[in-house]
């Protein structure tokens, strides 16, 4: 176990360095959610006037959803790093070492979770300027963080699994675009469930992205209850299953090369 943690930490550190040393990548990743928050808050400002919309400030409603969406997008691209490692031969070099195999999955996931905290902090600061407030206290913050970490880990692991299956950058990009945006819109990130058509609401209920959005929002509002605990449990289970799938993908990659 100590060896697995050591290997995972070393690999996570390498991935963090890899991201930190690409200033343009960092800048774009930080500016993009900032723009989204400003644009969406301005564009959908009038939604707060709709009958049945509970919040008075759209930024207050949208901020938890945007934080989840930002984490979701970033983690879904995580497999690209793996593809780079495959192409460069870095993965083979690691596989020929006594590295604990799960560390090759857990390391990048840890990097994703850690690096996702920075845009989250920036969004919280900007959201505060737009009138959004956090009412959840420490428990609410922990619940929101748990939801974010679980959804990030789940999608980063699935991105790895897809990368090992398709083994081409273009295919992974197409797959991410195909999945991430519909999942985001099939959640309450932009609009509460009571204001969307029934069939969309049905999809929202079984969408893991929505579990994360709702758990995060509950953490913001301090309205923690059994439903939130259930969603956090489901998200954790999803993360575990995704890591198992990614592990299976790695074993398959090793078998087929």
């Amino acid at each position, binding site marked *: 176990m100590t060896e697995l943690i050591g*290997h995972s930490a070393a690999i996570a550190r*390498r991935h963090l360095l*890899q991201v930190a*040393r*690409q200033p343009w990548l960092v800048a774009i990743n930080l500016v993009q959610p900032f723009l989204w928050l400003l644009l969406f808050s301005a564009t959908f400002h009038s939604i707060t006037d709709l009958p049945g919309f509970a919040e008075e400030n759209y930024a207050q409603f949208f901020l938890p959803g945007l934080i989840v969406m930002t984490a979701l997008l970033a983690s879904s691209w995580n497999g690209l790093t793996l593809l780079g490692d495959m192409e*460069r031969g870095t993965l*083979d*070099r690691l596989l*020929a070492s006594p590295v604990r195999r799960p560390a090759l999955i857990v390391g990048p996931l840890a990097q994703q979770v850690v690096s996702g905290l920075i845009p989250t902090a920036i969004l919280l600061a900007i959201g505060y300027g737009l009138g959004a407030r956090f009412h959840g206290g420490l428990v609410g913050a922990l619940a929101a963080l748990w939801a974010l970490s679980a959804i990030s880990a789940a999608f980063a692991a699935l991105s790895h699994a897809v990368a090992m299956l398709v083994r081409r950058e273009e295919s992974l990009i197409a797959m991410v675009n195909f999945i991430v945006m519909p999942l985001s819109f099939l959640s309450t990130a932009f609009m509460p469930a009571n204001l969307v058509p029934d069939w969309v609401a049905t999809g929202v209920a079984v969408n893991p992205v929505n579990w994360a959005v709702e758990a995060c929002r509950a953490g913001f509002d301090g309205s923690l209850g059994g439903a939130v605990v259930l969603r956090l449990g489901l998200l954790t289970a999803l993360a575990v299953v995704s890591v198992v799938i990614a592990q299976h993908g790695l074993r398959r990659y090793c078998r087929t*090369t």
Partner: protein
Amino acid sequence: MTGPIISARDLVKTYRSGVRALDGLSFDVREGTLFGLLGPNGAGKSTAVRILSTLSRPDAGEALVAGYDVTRTPREVRRRIGLVGQKLSAVPTATVRENVMLQGRMYGLRSRELAGRTDDVLARLGLAEVAAVQAGTCSGGMKRRIDIAMGIVHRPRILFLDEPTTGLDPDIRQRLWADLADLVRRDGLTILLTTHYLEEADELANQVAIIDRGRIVTTGSPEQLKQQLRGDTLRIELTRAPRDGVVGDALSGLGGVSEITVDGTRLHARADDGGAAVPVVLDSLARAGIAVVSVTVARPSLDDVYLRHTGRRYETASAAVGPTIGGLP
């Protein structure tokens, strides 16, 4: 260890594409030697290295590396080997030092020991001055040395190098050869190196195995292999490609001249005494109406060894197969 440090027996590997990369590959490597696996592209060299370094499993056969079975105890094998693949695998955004240290951590090296070994290996390979530079900004030769540094930082018993000098300038290649020879001589490291450069195997290897179509066709020291061929090699450039059979008819009756092959305008033959054979051969060719541009008399090379055992010239075999993708045939 008294037996071979690497022992491959009847290895077979067929890819899903149907390509049979290895077809009963067998060879042994003695400890503390540099073993050259020589063959054209697609001969099965990279597949052999992938199996011996536990990256791939054979369909049949058995391989022991440092006394451990590569399929039954791969983790034990991995602790004792280093791998330098065909590609330049350093992470470009990490510094040279960070790359080497990351690899060291995978072998359980920590803090002071890891730092010390990293410094040693960087100094050894002439990389100390660029230790803090991002690997992506280094030249191709330096990147290759970074790969080697990553391959030896944990002091393995065996280092696998898969075509390490492909694409490097001749002077950089020479420098790398010196580094590799030094690792064997000073550290007692065993190196298995694949190459498609005949001169590389000739210059570096204590033992050479020539691989063709997934099988070893002959093995021995470069000198032993060349000594299997008596006399000299005649290389004759003709003005134009002759009709089939004409050259054979012209030279067939000559004593001391054998193994005649024609490839376009190039004629190769073995001669017991090259100097004495030249005027006789030229006269016979002239009588047959075959004009000659130039004649070279040379000692046998590994190219001649390859020709003798495969029936094809080395260059022709390499060209026929073409480039490989991703190290696989």
